[in-house]
């Protein structure tokens, strides 16, 4: 578990509380701390502006709306993290990530650059526009309270993906009902001998990243917890950021790679028209 989730304040945290209290008591205007200033520093990717960035501690969770055209980048900083993600249509939250349709429509159970991430409504939540790893699992799922209790019976503070998702979506007023089967990034799971699952071990290197371009306004929930088949069990921090990607051209490969993709984007564009996000 990361330092941030140990539950015991460090000397630095106690000192920071005292400093903030002193400022609040004395000064009318609160200044940005050094940490805040770092977050606010404008930075870019490929000349495009980074809108948000956060380090998500091992065992932690995050939820956020990624607007259509923005790109969510997940960085596997240590190479050993296996963040799990679910996604909802932010404008119509009954529409959600559907791993079955994502596999079935693309005739493949594995994800990688150029693949689309589908909802159950025949529409595209995300296009995978960059991927330096190539191993992402949507077959074996993520941890639950039951699986973590079985694996770490002594560690009552260890988090699990399902409860993290409930927490992350709870911030937006949703709950257990909205937690659906997920995608675990930077995780290699193969189907062998026709049916059995094999964990492929270290498939990711430090700094690997995946770029997910939102094709509608997407509410993402992310749990930075260990994949249940990951023998390492490590939970290192990852970096997540959202940047304003370049507008997708009509001949964008995500849209034109196959006729299924073309039809899915017809459906997706039609939804954007319905909510007034596209003329």
């Amino acid at each position, binding site marked *: 578990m990361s330092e941030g989730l140990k539950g015991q304040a460090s000397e630095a945290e106690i000192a920071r509380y005292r400093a903030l209290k002193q400022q609040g008591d004395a000064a009318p205007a609160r200044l940005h701390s050094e940490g805040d200033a770092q977050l606010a520093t404008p930075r870019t990717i490929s000349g495009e502006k980074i809108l948000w960035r956060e380090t998500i501690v091992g065992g932690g969770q995050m939820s956020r709306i990624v607007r259509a055209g923005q790109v969510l980048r997940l960085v596997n900083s240590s190479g050993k993290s296996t963040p799990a993600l679910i996604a909802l249509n932010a404008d119509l939250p*009954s529409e959600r990530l*559907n*791993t*079955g*349709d994502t*596999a*079935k*429509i693309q*005739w*493949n*159970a*594995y994800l990688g650059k150029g693949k689309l991430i*589908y909802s*159950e*409504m*025949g*529409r595209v939540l995300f296009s995978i526009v960059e991927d330096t790893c190539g191993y992402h699992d949507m*077959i*074996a*799922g*993520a941890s*639950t*309270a*039951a*699986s973590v209790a079985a694996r770490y019976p002594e560690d009552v503070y260890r988090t699990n993906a*399902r409860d993290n998702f409930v927490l992350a979506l709870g911030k937006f007023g949703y*709950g*257990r*009902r*909205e*937690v*659906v*089967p*997920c995608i675990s990034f930077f995780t290699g799971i*193969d*189907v*062998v001998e*026709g*049916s*059995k*699952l094999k964990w492929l071990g270290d498939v990711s290197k430090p700094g690997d990243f995946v770029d997910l371009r939102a094709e509608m306004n997407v509410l993402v929930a992310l749990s930075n917890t260990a994949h*249940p*088949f990951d023998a390492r069990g490590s939970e290192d921090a990852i970096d997540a950021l959202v940047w304003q990607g370049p507008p997708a051209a009509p001949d964008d490969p995500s849209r034109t790679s196959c006729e*299924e993709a073309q*039809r*899915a984007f*017809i*459906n997706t564009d039609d939804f954007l028209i319905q909510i007034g996000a596209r003329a």
Partner: protein
Amino acid sequence: MSKTVLDIVHPARLSWSHPLGKGQRLRIVDLEGCQAVDTLLYNADDPVERYDLQQTIQAQRAIFVTTGTRLMSNEGRALAVISDDTVGNHDTLGGACSAESNTVRFGLEKRHLHSCRDNFLHAYVSNGLGKDDIVGNINFFMNVPVEQNGHLAIVDGVSRAGSYVEIEAQMNIVVMISNCPQINNPCNGFNPTPIRLTIFDR
């Protein structure tokens, strides 16, 4: 000798739902062969606890379900166990067909065809559930092999006339079935057919 509490022939293409008490068994018979039966399970007392394909796969570290497989919930508990099976592999990955996915897979004009998700939605209204409760399901008698490179396709089923699968409830559950109406791929041999549903008391 276990008592039979229900024994019906269920028509092609239609949905069905029924409670199954802890210890009761439901047998689904593929009467004519190669008929996908899309199935979802719910905790009868708390239907937000429901069948979860990934937890089921995770619990047995394999994608096909057969005799002995525990059908797991999103909370990591067994809703039911497969107590008998004459087929040997049933699909966990493909999920249900829908009007919307049919438009993407087969053509925009396919939206008006009959589909499993529409069947579920129709059945759920009378059970106090809604679209939010529909998740990835089991497809009994459907054959979806995954190759080493991840390639996945719905291929001809291996079930024959009279093949059956039986589940035994591990808690009080509600079973939702869509007797799949899909005619655009081989999951029903391009010809949806009736099934027999039998419930045995514990």
